[in-house]
């Protein structure tokens, strides 16, 4: 298994009327366990802005903030081999698959 490294929740500086507001885009971090991926592409179908298939037809994460947390979780839950690990970056707990 070669999980991709965890990354912290994305924060985007947003300038509004001179003030800097920090906007958090989701708290779930997704990682693909490529040894389990069978190229079913259900994740790509559900969260196409987060996952895509690479040249080996295995799922990779292209962005952590392309789709919202609920969609990312649904994509992970739809994977027939539970190859997608979802972690809550705030609590550090693994959200999916259940431990």
């Amino acid at each position: 298994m070669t999980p991709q490294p965890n990354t912290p929740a994305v924060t985007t500086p947003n300038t509004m009327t001179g003030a800097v507001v920090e906007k958090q885009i989701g708290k779930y971090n997704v990682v693909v366990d490529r040894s389990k991926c069978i190229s079913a592409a259900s994740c790509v179908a559900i969260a196409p802005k987060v996952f895509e298939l690479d040249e080996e037809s295995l799922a990779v994460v292209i962005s952590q903030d392309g789709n919202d947390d609920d969609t990312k979780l649904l994509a992970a839950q739809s994977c027939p081999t539970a190859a997608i690990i979802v972690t809550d970056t705030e609590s550090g707990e693994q959200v999916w698959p259940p431990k």
Partner: protein
Amino acid sequence: MPNPPQVMTARLSEREVLNAKFTQYRFELVLPTKIHFQSGQYVSMSVDPAGHRRSFSISSTPENDHGFDLFIDVEPHGMGVQYLENLQFGDTVSVLAPMGQFVVQSEDPTVPLVFVASGSGVAPLRSMLYDQLQKHGENRKMTLFWGLRHEADMCWTDDLKSIVASHPNITFHPTISRAMDEWPLCRGRVTDCLTVHEVDVTAEYYICGNQQMILDTIAVLVARGVPEGKIFHEKFY
């Protein structure tokens, strides 16, 4: 290109125990009220409050767009089967659908189609067969190889006999691995059946079964000259 999946709510409307191994379920859509899928696609059903999901191929045809049929092998009796068995008529389920890219590639009726299934893997292939029959009638040659363990596992026999009898373009090869002495047709695994019948190298091949069956079938087909690019299989079985 298949339609993107969406969350759908559907209601159990029929449950037909076909034999000791297979049960067919019918779900009618509640929200939305129609599904636009392609034959060969599947639904991903939420089967417990924790979020576990199971994938089930749709065995009905896209023409019937207000619901979907599932063809279930109940013998493994895993989480998905138990969930389905515990449903009462009228209960609703949540599915993501349509899912998957295991669909007929060529819509050219001069390209023959060969479907190779074991067990409940016949579900998406049955949908493809009937869908193509509706679209092309007798203009597309199609062959179904279906491997089962026992003769008692056979179902849809009358339907399949009827379409074979009324459509000269359809061929059906049921294969029984533990057949009684009097079984008149192919014995052994579906790959054994494929080795003794004619293999059309111009056809597209669609395989659905367990992983070893898929690998074995691909090996037989490639050895018999079928280009790998013409072989397609469902990945989640």
